[in-house]
C-alpha cells in the first residue's frame, strides 16, 4: 500500500483564506445562537472585522513572499500544491477583499428603505400570505446574507488561487452557490428576484457541468489535474490531442460563463436586474475579478504551451463580447440591465488584455505584461462598478429603486452631486482620460497590440466608441432631459453607502490621475507560479 505522505499546510500563507472561512462559519454560529436583535450588529462587525483581518494578512504575506524556485514568479504552493499563493493571487485577494468590504457596507445599508435592509424579511414566505405580512410586521431581515457573502468571498479567493482543476472547480462552486441564494433575496420585486436566482442557478449549474466535464477530459489527457503536470503533458504532447482540445473548450465555457462573455452572457442582465442592488454590486465586481484571475491562471499556467489552440477562440469571443455587449446595452431601457451589458462589453476588453504576452522574458524592458494590465483593469473596473451600483441604489421613487432610465431624467437638477458622481463612473467605464477606465483601456490595448493582436485592438476601439455612446446617452438623460412626472427622488444614504461611493469615486479618480503605484504593484505581483 502506497505510503501516506502528509501534505504540508502553510498556515501563515493561507491565513487570509482561513480567516474568511472561519468568519463565515462564525457568522453561522452567530445566526444560530445570538438573539435576533443582536444579530445585525454582530454580523456586520464580524464580517468587517474578518475582512480587514484578512486584508492585513494579505499585506503581511505579500510583504515577505519569496521567489519561487525558478525565480520568474514569487510565492508558494500550499497544501500539496493545490493552492498557489503567488503575486497575482495575492493581488486579487487584496482586491476581492477590498470590494467585499464595500459589499458589506452596502449590505448593511438600512437608511434607504425606511430602516430595513434591501433583503427579504423572510425569503421562504410567499408574498401576499400572512407569513409574509407577519415577517414584515416583525421587521425581520435575513442576517444570513453576511455569512453567505463571506462564503462567496472565500470562493472568490480560492478560485483564482487554485492550482489544480479540482480545487478550481470547488472554488467555482463555493463562489457561485451563495450568490445564487443572495440574488433571490430582494425585499421588493420579490418574484423578479426569485426568477433571477432561478435563472442564475440553472445556467450556472449548467455551465459548471461543462467546466467539470472539461476538467475530466483534461485529466484523462494529462493523467493529472495539477496545472504544472498538465503543462508538462501539453508540452510533451502525450495522449490524444482531441481530448485536450475538447477539454479546453469545455473548461473555457465554464469560465467564460462566469465572466459573462458572449455567447454565455444570457444570464447577466437578468441576474443583475433581479438581484438586490447591493448583491448586484458585490457580485458584478467580485465575480469578474475572481473569474479572470482563474482564467489567466488556467490559460497561462496549465495551457500556456497550447497557446495556439485557444488564442483564436479568445480572439473571437473577445470581439463578440465587446460588440454584442455594447450593441445590446444601447437598446436597454433599464439602468441595471444597461450596466449588465456594459459589463459584458468590459469582459471583452479584459479578454483583449488576456490575449497579450504574459511572460516577462517576451517583453521589452519596461513594457507592461498582460497580467499586469489585466489586474489593473480589474481594479479599475471593480471599483467603478461597485460605486455605480451603489449610486443606483440611491435613486428612488415611490415604488422603491427606480431603474428605468427615462425616470432618471432631471437627476442633474434633483441632486447634482449624485448625478455628477454617477456621470463620473460612467465616464470611467467609457474610458475618458483622467478616469481610471482610460488607463485600464490603455494598458490592455497596448499589451494586446504588443502581442500582435491588432485586429482585436481595432475592434476594441470601435466597440469603445459604440460603448461611449450609451454612457453619454445616460448622462444626457440625467442632465439635459426634462423629468417625467415628479422626477426621481434621491434617498439620503447612511455613512455606509456614502463611504462605498466615496471610496469608489476616489479610487477611480486616483487611478486615472496617478495610476503609477497600482501599475507598479501589479508589476511587482509579477507572474503566476508555473
Amino acid at each position, binding site marked *: 500500500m502506497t505510503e501516506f505522505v502528509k501534505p504540508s499546510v502553510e498556515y501563515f500563507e493561507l491565513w487570509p483564506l482561513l480567516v474568511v472561512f472561519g468568519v463565515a462559519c462564525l457568522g453561522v454560529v452567530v445566526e444560530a445562537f445570538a438573539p435576533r436583535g443582536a444579530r445585525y450588529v454582530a454580523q456586520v462587525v464580524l464580517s468587517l472585522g474578518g475582512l480587514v483581518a484578512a486584508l492585513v494578512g494579505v499585506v503581511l504575506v505579500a510583504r515577505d513572499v519569496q521567489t519561487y524556485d525558478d525565480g520568474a514568479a514569487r510565492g508558494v504552493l500550499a497544501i500539496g500544491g493545490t493552492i498557489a499563493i503567488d503575486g497575482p493571487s495575492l493581488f486579487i485577494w487584496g482586491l476581492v477583499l477590498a470590494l467585499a468590504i464595500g459589499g458589506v457596507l452596502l449590505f448593511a445599508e438600512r437608511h434607504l428603505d425606511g430602516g430595513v435592509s434591501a433583503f427579504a424579511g423572510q425569503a421562504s414566505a410567499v408574498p401576499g400570505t400572512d407569513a409574509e405580512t407577519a415577517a414584515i410586521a416583525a421587521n425581520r431581515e435575513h442576517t444570513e446574507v453576511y455569512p453567505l457573502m463571506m462564503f462567496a468571498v472565500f470562493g472568490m479567493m480560492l478560485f483564482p488561487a487554485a492550482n489544480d482543476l479540482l480545487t478550481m472547480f470547488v472554488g467555482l462552486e463555493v463562489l457561485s452557490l451563495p450568490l445564487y441564494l443572495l440574488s433571490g433575496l430582494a425585499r421588493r420585486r420579490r418574484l423578479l428576484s426569485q426568477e433571477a436566482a432561478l435563472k442564475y442557478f440553472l445556467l450556472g449549474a449548467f455551465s459548471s457541468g461543462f467546466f467539470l466535464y472539461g476538467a475530466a477530459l483534461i485529466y484523462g489527457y494529462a493523467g493529472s489535474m495539477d496545472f504544472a503536470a498538465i503543462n508538462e503533458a501539453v508540452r510533451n504532447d502525450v495522449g490524444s490531442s482531441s481530448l485536450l482540445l475538447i477539454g479546453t473548450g469545455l473548461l473555457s465555457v465554464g469560465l467564460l460563463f462566469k465572466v459573462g462573455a458572449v455567447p454565455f452572457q444570457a444570464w447577466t442582465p437578468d441576474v443583475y436586474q433581479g438581484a438586490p442592488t447591493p448583491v448586484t454590486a458585490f457580485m458584478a465586481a467580485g465575480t469578474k475579478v475572481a473569474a479572470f484571475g482563474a482564467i489567466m491562471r488556467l490559460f497561462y499556467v496549465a495551457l500556456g504551451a497550447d497557446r495556439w489552440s485557444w488564442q483564436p477562440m479568445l480572439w473571437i469571443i473577445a470581439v463578440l463580447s465587446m460588440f454584442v455587449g455594447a450593441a445590446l446595452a444601447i437598446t436597454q431601457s433599464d439602468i441595471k440591465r444597461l450596466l449588465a451589458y456594459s459589463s459584458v462589453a468590459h469582459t471583452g476588453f479584459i479578454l483583449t488584455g488576456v490575449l497579450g504576452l504574459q511572460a516577462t522574458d517576451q517583453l*521589452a524592458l519596461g513594457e507592461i505584461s498582460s497580467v499586469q494590465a489585466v489586474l489593473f483593469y480589474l481594479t479599475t473596473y471593480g471599483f467603478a462598478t461597485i460605486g455605480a451600483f451603489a449610486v443606483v441604489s440611491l435613486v428612488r421613487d415611490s415604488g422603491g429603486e427606480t431603474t428605468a432610465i427615462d425616470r432618471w431624467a432631471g437627476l442633474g437638477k434633483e441632486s447634482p452631486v449624485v448625478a455628477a458622481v454617477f456621470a463620473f463612473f460612467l465616464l470611467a467605464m467609457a474610458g*475618458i482620460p483622467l478616469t481610471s477606465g482610460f488607463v485600464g483601456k490603455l494598458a490592455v490595448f497596448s499589451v494586446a497590440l504588443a502581442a500582435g493582436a491588432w485586429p482585436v485592438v481595432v475592434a476594441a476601439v470601435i466597440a469603445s466608441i459604440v460603448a461611449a455612446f450609451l454612457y453619454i446617452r445616460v448622462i444626457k438623460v440625467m442632465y439635459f432631459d426634462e423629468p417625467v412626472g415628479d422626477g426621481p427622488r434621491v434617498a439620503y444614504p447612511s455613512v455606509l453607502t456614502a463611504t462605498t461611493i466615496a471610496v469608489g469615486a476616489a479610487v477611480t479618480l486616483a487611478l486615472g490621475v496617478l495610476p503609477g503605484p497600482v501599475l507598479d504593484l501589479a508589476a511587482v505581483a509579477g507572474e503566476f507560479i508555473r
Partner: protein
Amino acid sequence: MLTVLILLPLVGAVVTAFVPGALARLVGLGFAAATLVAGIAAATQYDAGGGMQLTETHTWIEALGVHYALGVDGLGLLMVLLTVVLVPIVLLAGWRESEAEGNGGAKAFFAWTLALEAMSLAVFTATDVLLFYVVFEATLIPAYFLIGGFGRAGRGRAATKFLIYQLAGGLVMLASVIGLYVVSANSGTPSFLLSDLAALDIDPITQRWLFAGFFIAFAIKAPMFPVHTWLADTTEKATPGTSVLLVCILDKIGTFGMLRFCLGLLPDASQWATPVVVVLALVSIIYGALVAIGQDDVLRLIGLTSLSHFGFIVLGIFVFSSTGGTGAILYMVNHGIATALMFLVAGFLIQRTGTASIRAMGGVEKTAPVLAGFFLVAGLAACGLPGLSPFVSELMVIIAAFEHHWLVGSVAVLAIVLAAFYALWMYQRTMTGPALTGVAPVVDLDRREVGIVAPLLLALVLFGFYPMPLLDVINPVVHDTLAGVGVAQEGGHQ
C-alpha cells in the same frame, strides 16, 4: 510657469463652482483676467529664437513611460495667447445671456468655461503625447456641458452628437498613440515624450497607419469635409460664446495637432498622404462656402464659413512650403479673432431680434448702425478684404497653393469669390433693406458690448497692416517643422 498658467483657470473653475452665485461671475472673470496676465507674462519670457521653451518635465506613469511634460514653441505660444485673450471676452459676452431662461446658470457657464480654458492651455503646451491625448479628450467634458447646458432648444442632442464625434476621433487616435507606445517599446524603453518619439525612425507602413489615426482625429477636431457635420449643429444650438470657444480655440487643436504630430512625428507618412489631404482641404473650402451661402441661420452660417477657413489652414499646412506653413499658422490666429468677432456680434444681434433666422431680420443698420458696422467688418474679414488681417494669411496660403500646383491655387481663389458672396449677401439680407414691420426696432450696442468686441476689431486691423510680430514667432516653427519633413527651404515670405 506653464503649470501655473494651466492651474490658474482650473482653480478658478473650482472656486467659481463653489462661491455664491452673485459672486461667481466676478470671481470667474477675475481668474480669467489673471490667466490673461500670466499668459502675457509667459509670452514676455519667450524669445523668438524658436524651439521648445519654458519646458518642464516630470515622470508621471513610470510603467507606461508617460511624463508630465510642458513647453511651448511659437505655434503653442500663439495658441496660448489666443486662448487667454478670447476667454475673458467670451465671459464678458456671456455675462447676461448665460443666466437666460432654461440655461444652466451663470455660475456653471463661467466654471465650465474656465475649465475648458485650462484644458485647452494644457493641450497647447503638452509635449508628451499621452499627456496631450489625455487633455485633448478632457476638453470634451467642459465643452459637452457648455453646449448641452446653454443655448437653444435641441442643444442636448447637438451636445451628444458633438461628443460622439469627438470621442470617436479620440479613440481612433488612441489606437495610434498606443501604436506609438508599442513602437517605442520595441525600440528600447517605452516613452511618450515628443522628443524621444521624434528620434524614432518608424517603418513607412506603420507610419501610415499611425498617421491615419492621428489625422482622422484631427480632421474631426478641425472640421474637414467628410467629418464636419457636427460643427454646424453645434454652432447653431450653442450660445455664441460657446461657439467662439469651440471654433476659435478648440478647433485650432486640430490643425495644431496636424503640425505637431502628423508632420512632426510622421513626416514620411504626411508627404505620402498629401494628395488626399489637399483634395479634402479644397473640398472643405468650396463645400463650406457653398453651403454657407444657402444658410438661413446666422450662427449656422458662421459655423460653415469656418469650415471653409479650416480648409485653407489645412491646405496651407500640407503644401509643405514655408509660405504655406506660415500662412496657415497666421490664419489660425486671424481666423480665431475674426470668427470670434463675427459670432459675438451675431450673438448680440440675435439677443435683440430674438431669432437667428436671416429671413426674419432686415434693416438693422437703420436703428443700430454700430452693430451693423461691426458686423460688416467681421464679414469683410471673413472674405479676406485687404487691410484686415485674414487677408495676409489667406494670400500666403493661396500663393503657396499655386506653388504647389496651379489647379489647387485656382480652386482656392474661387473660394474667395464665394466667401465675398456669402459674407456680403448675409450682410445685405440682415442689415440693409426696409426695417421689419411689427417687431420692435433693434437697439444699438451699448458700451459694454462695444467694449467687448472693440479689442478684436483693433487686432484685426493691427495685424492686417503689421503682422510682423506674429511672423517672427511663427517662422522658426515652420522652419523646424519643414526641416523635419525634409522640404527645401526658401526663407520666410512677408
